[in-house]
């Protein structure tokens, strides 16, 4: 992400302006539209127009726009930041620990956090004026209604290709990741935004979890956790036609590693389960090793949520799959169902 989308330092922007700036820098216009529909905000087809719409929606006295408040705009922006398109690694905790974790988090909700990223949140920090060290910084602890979200900024410094031996080509970038603790389930969800380059996902997931543990365990208490292995989900979803259509699947043979990609991302009703792959040479059996499910939104909204399990082939061969990716969940409740169902099949 560039440093262009930042708050100008000349005039102090209003909260609404900061929120809109932050929303725009997510690059999630179409998902903002999905979330905005819950409040009545009119997210347009370009950000400039959206800013005008939202200003009108907030000022409007029409009862149609009664939920269009600055507070709800803040909720909207948080929702987009914590759930637009993320890789989830999930840790189960005991019921007793979950209760304690929620208690400790509740005390932090709404408390000011003293760092430049928290002060600038949800807008991005201008790296022309500050030069922070790479690492993880807590931005906000928010009560989302169905759980508590700890939003972190991860700062990455990396060299442009070809500039690895020079300091001149070092680019600093900022990504928002989240640790979410639901009220109704005893687990910790580490959500890594897909905006961050893939090669940082695992590193960030580990760093964010440690940061989170430091926050809740100020007294040195670290809660024992069990990481969920989604390996079994892949076959389970592949064989279960009620779980959504398969927009993309990779099948493979264990004997000779011949992959078959079944895929159509352009047809709205394609499902890989309608295709059969046959090995004509040895009659080897094909099994599914990666899967992208699409589930339609409910109600009047059109659109689909993406749920995918794409472990590296080498990881899959070892019977592991450590994360699930979810794109554009219709609601927080729908997202919760997806995660709960995946854990049940794991």
């Amino acid at each position: 992400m560039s440093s262009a989308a930042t708050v100008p330092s000349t005039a102090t922007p209003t909260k609404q302006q900061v929120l809109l700036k932050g929303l725009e820098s997510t690059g999630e216009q179409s998902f903002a539209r999905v979330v905005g529909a819950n409040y009545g905000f009119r997210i347009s087809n370009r950000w400039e127009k959206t800013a005008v719409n939202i200003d009108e929606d907030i000022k409007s006295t029409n009862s149609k726009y009664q939920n269009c408040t600055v507070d709800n705009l803040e909720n909207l922006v948080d929702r987009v930041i914590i759930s637009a398109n993320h890789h989830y690694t999930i840790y189960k905790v005991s019921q007793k620990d979950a209760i304690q974790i929620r208690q400790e988090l509740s005390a932090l909700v709404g408390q000011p956090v003293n760092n430049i990223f928290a002060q600038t949140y949800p807008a991005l920090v201008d790296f022309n004026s500050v030069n922070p060290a790479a690492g993880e910084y807590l931005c906000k602890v928010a009560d989302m209604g169905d759980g508590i979200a700890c939003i972190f900024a991860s700062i990455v410094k990396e060299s442009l290709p070809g500039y690895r031996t020079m300091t001149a080509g070092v680019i600093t970038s900022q990504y928002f990741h989240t640790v979410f603790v639901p009220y109704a389930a005893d687990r910790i969800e580490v959500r890594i935004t897909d905006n961050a380059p893939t090669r940082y996902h695992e590193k960030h997931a580990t760093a964010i979890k440690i940061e989170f543990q430091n926050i809740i365990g100020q007294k040195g208490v670290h809660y024992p956790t069990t990481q969920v292995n989604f390996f079994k989900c892949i076959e389970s979803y592949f064989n279960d036609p009620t779980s959504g259509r398969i927009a993309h699947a990779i099948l493979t043979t264990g004997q000779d590693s011949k992959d078959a990609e079944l895929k159509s991302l352009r047809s709205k009703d394609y499902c890989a389960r309608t295709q059969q792959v046959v090995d004509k040479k040895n009659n080897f059996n094909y099994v599914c090793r990666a899967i992208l499910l699409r589930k339609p939104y409910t109600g009047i909204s059109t659109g689909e949520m993406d749920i995918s399990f794409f472990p590296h082939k080498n990881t899959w061969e070892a019977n592991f799959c450590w994360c699930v990716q979810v794109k554009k969940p219709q609601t927080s409740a729908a997202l919760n169902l997806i995660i709960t169902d995946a854990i049940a099949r794991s």
Partner: protein
Amino acid sequence: MSIESRIKEYSARLDRLAERLKDEDSSNVNIYRNFLTFVSDNPDHTYYPITKLLTAAKCKDANQALDVANYFSVGRNALLNVTFCYFDFDGTDIRIDRECFIDSLNNNTPPVEDETGYPIDNFEPSRLGFYCNLISE
């Protein structure tokens, strides 16, 4: 050379190795034999990732699997072709050569990517690995 002849040749090599080691620890000979038996029973299986080497050779860890891969991949009329890789986060395999692989494994330092000559960024040791293909021609 056919797979059958390669297997036969390795079998003879193993007999000689066993003979030489008869008064010493011969556990390696056993896992080599296990692997050879698996290959002759399943000549159509042409792909051996680490997990499959573990079951085929009945070995107990990745180091032993590497040992099997090495034994069957060096010398004349080898049975396996080993590909050393960094299994990158985005699902791709980054090729590294044997020497860089061994270096990285021993010293826990980032291996050099063969394509670019640069050390791997964001190196995660658990993503270092290899797989083998049966040589069939």
